[in-house]
């Protein structure tokens, strides 16, 4: 499935050399950080730590508090409670509040926020005011090389394409060598094709610069493909944090499961070692983790389209029927309404074409343990 191949690309990047001194050192720590606006809580007791050279992505739906978190790290918002520290130095708590210019935190804004009155070179040199001219010049050249924009040194921002603007924004924020780099929805202003290309490129630039980075997005594919670790946020709190593949395979909550990939839930009744569902009865050892405590009760099993296959069959033996098909080019995703009432999705090769209304039985083809949740 598409999501899996994206995770695969992460491994390819590991070959890129990094300039990190101590990969286990903690660069950024948030401890019990909350932000309230009047009666509304944007961020709720958030605790998080980021290691040196790591790329962590905060992933969540809009309004989950991820951008607010980013702005609190940058010093653009002040936490209501909790502590933010950078390299073990407190930059915000009840008594301290360091201004953005005193934190050494760089930001790449969603809109890039390039200075429209300055050219590429002047934009990149903006944060280097104190260095002498030759040093500045040299540093700008290094950064232009890093982002492959040597030929655009004298151009104004409005003469650049979206991807080029983004690379200038990246170079500008990396210029003063920030401790932490923040990326706010970095790819949302690019068209889809360019987005995939820039993801790889940005990750490579960040790794080569060896910078510790936190990115924020609502795009699960982007989060899974560029990050070292993903933190899934919901309602101002982190629901799960970990390596992208681990989070995708073992979502700890229904929310995480339905946010990543196209999730369906099969309700089933546990009886001793078996579980009876709308697509047949399985042994409970196919489930992830012990389910004994739920003996006699119903649970919901997470199945993604690539875990299931639909097989056309006679009306009498059918477990459900196809209600809709979604053509993606290389593949079809069929939506199947089961007689049990559940709705599941099945992924098929583009050559396997069924018609809506066709009676089908469903095979569970997954070769990994399935995540499950107590029925709510």
């Amino acid at each position, binding site marked *: 499935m598409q999501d899996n191949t994206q995770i695969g690309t992460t491994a390819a990047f590991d070959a890129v050399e990094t300039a990190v001194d101590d990969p286990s050192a903690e660069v950024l720590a948030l401890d019990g950080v909350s932000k309230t606006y009047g009666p509304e809580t944007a961020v709720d007791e958030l605790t998080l730590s980021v290691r040196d050279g790591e790329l962590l992505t905060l992933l969540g739906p809009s309004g989950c508090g991820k951008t607010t978190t980013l702005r609190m790290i940058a010093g653009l918002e002040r936490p209501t409670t909790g502590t933010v520290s950078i390299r073990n130095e407190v930059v915000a708590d009840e008594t301290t509040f360091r201004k953005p210019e005193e934190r050494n935190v760089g*930001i790449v804004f969603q809109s890039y926020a390039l200075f429209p009155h300055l050219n590429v070179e002047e934009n990149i040199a903006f944060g280097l005011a104190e260095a002498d001219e030759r040093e500045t010049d040299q540093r700008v050249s290094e950064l232009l090389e890093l982002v492959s924009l040597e030929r655009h040194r004298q151009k104004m921002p409005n003469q650049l394409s979206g991807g080029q603007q983004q690379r200038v924004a990246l170079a500008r924020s990396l210029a003063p060598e920030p401790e932490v780099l923040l990326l706010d929805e970095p790819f949302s202003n690019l068209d889809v094709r360019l987005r995939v290309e820039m993801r790889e490129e940005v990750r490579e630039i960040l790794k080569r610069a060896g910078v510790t980075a936190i990115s924020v997005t609502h795009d699960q594919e982007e989060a899974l493909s560029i990050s070292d670790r993903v933190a899934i946020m919901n309602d101002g709190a982190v629901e799960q944090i970990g390596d992208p593949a681990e989070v995708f395979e073992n979502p700890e909550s229904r929310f995480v499961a339905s946010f990543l990939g196209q999730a369906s839930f099969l309700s089933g009744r546990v009886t001793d070692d078996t579980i009876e569902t709308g697509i047949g009865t399985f042994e409970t050892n196919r489930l992830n983790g012990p389910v004994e405590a739920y003996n006699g009760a119903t649970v919901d099993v997470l199945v993604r389209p690539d875990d299931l296959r639909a097989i056309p069959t006679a009306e009498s033996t059918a477990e459900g029927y196809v209600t809709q098909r979604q053509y993606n080019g290389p593949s079809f995703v069929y939506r199947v309404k089961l007689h049990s009432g559940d709705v599941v999705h099945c992924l098929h090769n583009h050559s396997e074409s069924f018609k809506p209304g066709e009676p089908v039985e469903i095979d569970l083809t997954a070769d990994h343990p399935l995540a499950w949740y107590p029925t709510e």
Partner: protein
Amino acid sequence: MATGDYDRVAEQTEGATTEQTASGLLSVVAVGITFLVLSPLLWLFLRAVEIEPARAVELVTSSTTVTVTANTVVLVATVTALSVVVGVPLAILTVQTDLPFRRFWTVTSALPLVVPSYIGAFAFVSAFGPRGHLADLLAPLGIKQIPAMYGLPGATLVLTLFTYPYVFLTTRAALLSFDGTTVEAARSLNQTRWQAFRRVTLPQIAPGIAAGALLVALYTLSDFGTPAIMQYDVFTRMIYNEFGARRIDYAAVLSWLLLVMAVGILAVESRIEAGRDGAYISRRSRRPGEIRLGRLKTPALLFCALVATLGLALPVGILLHWLIRGGIGYSATGQSFELAFAWNSLSVAAGAAAVSVIVALPLAYLAARSDSRLSSLPDRLSYVGYAVPGVVLGLALVYLSLRYLPFVYQSVLLLVFAYVVRFMPQAVGTTKSSLLQIDPGYIEAARSLGYSPLAAFRKVVLPLVAPGIAAGAALVFLTTMKELPATLMLRPPGFETFVTYIWQVQDAGYYGRAAIPALVLVVVSGLSMVVILRRERYNAG
């Protein structure tokens, strides 16, 4: 929408063959209008050429000319500089800080624009002049001498108070439209708030400040009423005086010098406008974080209150005071205000509005298309209206009519013509912008739904253009009502309006009599501002 699209509208509605004839006719009409609008300048040119070269040099280099030029430059420079000093901080305070009651101060900072400057000058003289309210108030305390209100200080004070809102409004617009994330970006690149303002905000709002400053400069240069009341010799006052003394040669020479300065200011302005063309305007703009004023809060509030008091409360208060109590000379003899004056004002203004709208329609249509070689003509033409001060236009039309068309001299017809030349550009502007808002897709959609080209035009185009035409008519009507110098110079004998009546009573010192017409004009100016603001909202939406 691109102007090219506009031709699709024309094609859809008229068909290709009639289109060509219509286009030819349109060009003829536009050239005719152009000639008419330029005719006053033509007279000035002919008159200047008739002067012997030696005499011309003598007039231009005379000590009076030098003094008047110096006075004008000093007045324009000080008023412009002070307007920036007052307008920019007010804009920053009301947009970017945690100033209490920001909305209130935004309104009070913009409102002095509705007080016609000659009414403001008149009110200030009556309050602070040698025999004014303040002198009366202080006399019992033994203070006999108060600083002179006349001359440069008075003219500067009054013009600054009633024109700084131009700077305030353009700076405010620039602050609201620029992308606040660039400020956050600067902060994240280790710049302090002040450094970020200087290096990021200021360069981006500078064109907005400059545009407002140039409007102030142009207004000050061409204003007749304020320097006349303050008895400060600038070009406009001198031209009016020379006109009164029938020294036409000198008046023509001074008019040329004034025109050259006005065109110079307009040239700089059009360059800034061209450079500004959406360059720094960001679509997604986040407001930069509020600046906390802290200990500066009280001085900031006092500053806002001082400006609002001087620019708004004081003049309006004085007018109301006259209205209720009666001012100096209230009961004196002399002509009292008659309803006929109001009727005169309203009828010439309505005439000017009607003619302007009719003339504006072909010009706006032409300006909205890109293919014609004449398409830039309406825009250039509008500069004539902005650049020619009323006093110059009045002078030119008096002598043009005396020489070539004696029967229109001192007729209402000529007066209306003068208003049309000056204020028609406003109608062209609003009509053009509403024409440009019509997506050719609208007409295509209507036709695909079974409407004939004509029916589509009537059902779709006309309702969309109508508000623009109406707004244009309203603006011309309202600005005509308060026009001073051309009205004084061109009106038929005995033809009194709000404006001429105010001028007459201020000249005689019967201040109290001016209360009603002056308040009417303040309300009229207020209404024209409402029209402009509503248009802006309409265009933005």
